[in-house]
């Protein structure tokens, strides 16, 4: 049982880098001061927070005072959406049906407070179009919030194109970039976004630290009132170690971004092709090319994702599922349902999200274990569903062809 752990759940949490841990270590016991204190111990802490902010500002290509450190991605998202809503007091917000619950539940709560929300539907690949956003914008629209990349199916949204529409219509735009931190363009000036959320625990940094970029001039009501920290937008003594760790993690992941992307895309396509080839009645969720380099998500008919995840776990493979059985609500993945696939596909979905440590050997192991695990569950399943009853032969063929093209390239 001393098999190596093959961790393929990096969309849930990335392991913290050793360098990040080392950068954080001094700030627990040795440099304990409050950055807000007017003394040397406090000053030392302040300098390090300033340094970290500088690093993050350089990477995001923004001013330091445009950055707010928070208690995580969820808090950043809450601050961006509620902060704008409270500043404007009323109005209409546009988002998509595939957002993370941090966005969806925030929007649903605002609906109860009297705001109106439009949830844009996505296509089979999980994409919204700039035209959809344009059509949804109304005179009273105060904010558009669309995720950069989807946490479940890895689909990358056309952010610059959506931003263009929002700029034309003079509507604020926020993107939840939590899943995009390691692999995508984080230059907020190039992207043109007004607000931008990042999360430490998805970039090999610490949990419980998030970042929110807020373009100068954007009116934002704070959610946490206190001692005026973070430009008065987020009260509370700074999480010095966390902020230092966040900046370190961001810096390191940016350095190896291109190289890692190239490496991971190869592995991603290798894994996808292998799964689709060796497992009958399996379909890829998300987009074949407009997807995160580390994300593979497939739905397999006749079986249930939690049982499959448990079988994989026995082989040391850690994956995730959109099955209802692992969700607190007993509802299966809202993302897979939003792409138009029926419940059967959501229950049988499995997500592999690779990371820095993932090797080809790991993927080979997954490809070795998966077909047998699926076969085992199918053997005890009373169902034998027909894929063509859900997805037409033509659509299946088109998907496979499109995918084969990707692999050949």
């Amino acid at each position, binding site marked *: 049982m001393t098999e190596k752990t093959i961790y393929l759940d990096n969309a849930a949490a990335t392991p913290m880098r050793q360098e990040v841990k080392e950068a954080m270590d001094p700030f627990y016991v040795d440099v304990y001061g409050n950055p807000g204190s007017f003394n040397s111990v406090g000053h030392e802490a302040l300098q390090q927070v300033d340094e970290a902010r500088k690093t993050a500002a350089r990477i995001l290509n923004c001013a330091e005072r445009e950055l707010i450190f928070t208690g995580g991605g969820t808090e950043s998202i809450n601050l961006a959406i509620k902060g704008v809503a409270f500043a404007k007091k009323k109005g209409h917000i546009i988002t998509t049906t595939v957002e993370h619950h941090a966005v969806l539940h925030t929007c649903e709560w605002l609906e109860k407070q009297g705001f109106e929300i439009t949830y844009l539907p996505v296509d089979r690949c999980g994409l919204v179009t700039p035209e959809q956003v344009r059509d949804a914008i109304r005179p009273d629209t105060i904010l558009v919030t669309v995720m950069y990349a989807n946490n479940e199916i890895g689909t990358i949204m056309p952010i610059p194109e959506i931003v263009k529409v929002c700029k034309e219509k003079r509507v604020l735009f926020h993107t939840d970039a939590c899943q995009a931190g390691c692999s995508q363009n984080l230059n907020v000036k190039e992207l043109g976004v007004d607000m931008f959320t990042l999360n430490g625990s998805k970039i090999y940094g610490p949990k419980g630290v998030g970042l929110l970029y807020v373009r100068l001039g954007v009116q934002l009501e704070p959610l946490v009132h206190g001692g005026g920290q973070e430009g008065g937008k987020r009260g509370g003594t700074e999480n010095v170690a966390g902020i230092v760790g966040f900046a370190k993690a961001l810096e390191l992941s940016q350095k190896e971004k291109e190289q890692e992307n190239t490496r991971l895309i190869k592995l991603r396509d290798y894994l996808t092709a292998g799964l689709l080839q060796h497992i009958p009645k399996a379909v890829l969720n998300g987009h074949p090319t407009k997807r995160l380099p580390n994300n593979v998500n497939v739905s397999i008919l006749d079986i249930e994702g939690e049982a499959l995840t448990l079988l994989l776990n026995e082989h040391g493979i850690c994956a995730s599922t959109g099955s209802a059985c692992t969700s*607190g609500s007993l509802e299966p993945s809202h993302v897979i349902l939003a792409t138009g696939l029926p419940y059967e596909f959501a229950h049988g979905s499995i997500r592999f999200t690779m990371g820095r440590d993932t090797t080809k050997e790991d993927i080979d192991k997954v490809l070795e274990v998966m077909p047998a695990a699926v076969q085992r569950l199918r053997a005890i399943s009373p169902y034998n*569903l027909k894929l063509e009853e859900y997805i037409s032969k033509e659509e299946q063929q088109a998907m496979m062809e499109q995918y084969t093209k990707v692999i050949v390239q």
Partner: protein
Amino acid sequence: MSSELNIIEGESTPITKPAPATHADVKAKVESKNWFYTDIVKDHFFNPRNILINDADAEKLEFDGVGMVGSPACGDGMKMWIKVDKKNDKIVDCKWQTFGCASAIGSTSMLSVMVTENGGVPVQKALELKPMDIMNRLGGLPNRKFHCSVLGDKALRAAINDHFRRSGQTERIIVEGARIIDPDLKITDKDIEEAVLDGADTIEKVQHKLKVGVFNKSCLPAVEELIRFYKEKYFG
């Protein structure tokens, strides 16, 4: 309501409390392959007893009753076959197939053991089995997995009814409660009554127990109405 399970005493199997099912994310760099199930559930998941691997065997084995509950859209589906020693009115064999999570598979496997052990269980005794009995034998199930044992129990009841029908014992057929509320999962008003009595006083809590209306949402108004009715009836 606490996140821990209510466990009925008096079973011979040692009962261990399961870990609270608050977080399903997989842990990294762990030595053991911990999950949030008891060892008994895991054992029945990895080594399921009495499975019917090949549908063709169902013919060969000449079963007396077959029952099915759930659907692939619901996320759980169970099919159960039973063989009855008619002279002694005992279940002597029980085979099954399950689509679902580890606890659904574990529940059906355990149930198939429970109705066939010690040379077979009288049909009447099998009908008296409660989902809670399956759960206890499994050493407990996480709270939101309780519905798995409910489904196993329902598949067995459906198989026994089928046996009654086939053998002409129509007077013994048990019509499920008074009425079925969720046709996909065969959840009845009686199931909802039991859930309310067990402390589930909101639709969310009842859904965690029974999964009722999670897929088939059209029954939700009826479920809410029943919760209100039973709450008033029992708790004023």
